[in-house]
């Protein structure tokens, strides 16, 4: 069942809007559902965006345009070229700049009447409560499990709503956690997947429009929370399938046994979320395999010398089309049943994009009895950096 939105800001309305603001927000003001009262609520609202990437882009743009009085932007990352396909806050000239600062500049330009505060920092258990306390609503636009559990727990401990959105390839999930009496992220998913079961890069990627849609729904839910109007997504999980173009809805219940929002709270402070998720850091989701390696420069030198090296590419066919080192293509997932295509008497150099999948391949083949097999350290990315810049990075 949909729950009626209760306004959460509780802030007293600012006395007035300036004539310029009245003109800017005209299309809100002439709609009784927002009107002058609603626009003043927006002006008094303080919203913190965790992440200024794919989800954060439409969130920041629409919330700034709508006149949310104070927007906080938390992001430690810098803009790179691969972001531009979906992170529409940024332009090509922003590449290399800190995301929080580039987004701050863009949003301030969009709406100079609001306050935009950039926090160029990584959200951690040490700073989350301090960062959150000055804001009314927290919006989760992150991309990893440890931060999502951290955002959830900090919101519950502080009693603040958490507007949640997540995406994978063609699919998105949206809901609102942490409203009074409503469920939290731990009620929905008590634990994260172990790192080994998180989809690998062979299955990664995201259609650029998807975060635009999911982030826009988050922005809408945020504005409804501020206005106190409509039916909130709290208590409902909205699932969006972009390929099938279907929205489906699932009932979300508060778990009375939830360790943080249930009847008997057992989590009273923020914990180590990397340990909780079984990862040491965002950059190293799986334990590193120790397999014999060859650096791109050594590989180049040995190839030039005419050494007999068999090159095994364990990426997917669509990746091979982007660029390749003329290797024999066997996607990692097909390796077990295609081992017979390899000659164990020859020396093999396995590679992928970054060196991670091929490390798994080398590990697998060594266990299968292959003795002369090396992993190309850093994969195609390192090859492009150190040997041949004409090979594109992706």
């Amino acid at each position, binding site marked *: 069942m949909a729950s009626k939105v209760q306004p959460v800001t509780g802030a007293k309305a600012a006395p007035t809007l300036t004539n310029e603001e009245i003109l800017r927000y005209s299309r809100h003001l002439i709609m009784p559902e927002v009107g002058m009262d609603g626009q003043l609520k927006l002006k008094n609202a303080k919203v913190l965006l965790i992440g200024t990437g*794919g989800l954060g882009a439409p969130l920041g743009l629409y919330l700034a345009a709508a006149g949310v009085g104070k927007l906080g932007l938390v992001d430690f990352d810098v803009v790179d070229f691969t972001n531009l396909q979906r992170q529409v806050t940024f332009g090509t000239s922003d590449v290399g700049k800190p995301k929080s600062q580039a987004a701050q500049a863009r949003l301030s330009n969009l709406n100079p009447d609001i306050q935009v505060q950039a926090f160029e920092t990584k959200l951690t258990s040490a700073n989350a409560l301090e960062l959150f306390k000055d804001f009314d609503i927290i919006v989760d636009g992150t991309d990893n499990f440890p931060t999502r559990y951290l955002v959830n727990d900090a919101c519950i401990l502080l009693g603040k709503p958490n507007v949640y959105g*997540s995406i*994978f390839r*063609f699919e998105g999930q949206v809901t609102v956690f942490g409203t009074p009496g409503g469920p939290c992220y731990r009620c929905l998913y008590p634990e994260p997947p172990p790192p080994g079961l*998180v989809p690998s890069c062979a299955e990664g*990627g995201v259609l650029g429009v998807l975060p635009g849609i999911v982030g826009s729904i988050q922005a809408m839910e945020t504005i409804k929370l501020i206005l106190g109007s409509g039916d909130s997504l709290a208590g409902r999980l909205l699932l969006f399938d972009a390929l099938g173009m279907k929205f489906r809805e*699932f009932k979300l219940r508060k778990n009375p046994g939830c360790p943080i929002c249930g009847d008997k709270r057992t989590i009273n402070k923020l914990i180590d979320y990397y340990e909780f998720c079984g990862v040491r850091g965002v950059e190293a989701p799986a334990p590193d395999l120790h397999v014999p390696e060859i650096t791109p420069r050594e590989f180049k030198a040995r190839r030039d010398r005419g050494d007999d090296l068999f090159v095994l590419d364990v990426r997917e066919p669509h990746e091979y089309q982007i660029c390749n080192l003329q290797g024999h293509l066997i996607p990692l997932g097909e390796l077990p049943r295609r081992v017979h295509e390899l000659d164990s008497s020859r020396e093999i150099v396995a590679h992928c994009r970054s060196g991670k999948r091929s490390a798994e391949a080398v590990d697998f083949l060594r266990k299968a009895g292959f003795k002369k097999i090396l992993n190309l350290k850093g994969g195609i990315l390192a090859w492009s950096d150190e040997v041949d810049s004409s090979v594109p990075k992706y």
Partner: protein
Amino acid sequence: MAVRVMIPTPLRVYAGKRDSAEFRAGTVGEALAQLTGEFDDLRRHLFTDDGNLRSFVNVYVNGEDIRYLSKEETPTKDGDTISIIPSIAGGSCC
């Protein structure tokens, strides 16, 4: 008519790229057993080694969470839709 099991995007790779499958099943458990019987790779993504549903995978019958019904014993009837909804974090790639 039968029970339709909806397979989410992240798990389709373990289910022959199918987005759904139909089974004749009287309970959620029976339907999932047939599904993982047909697609063996899916089993370790849905169940722990002890055979329990993993805590980052939720299963719904017609929009209702089976944890608040009779879990895997939840009865199903012709035309019901079982949805598997795993936790997704979104974004980054190695």
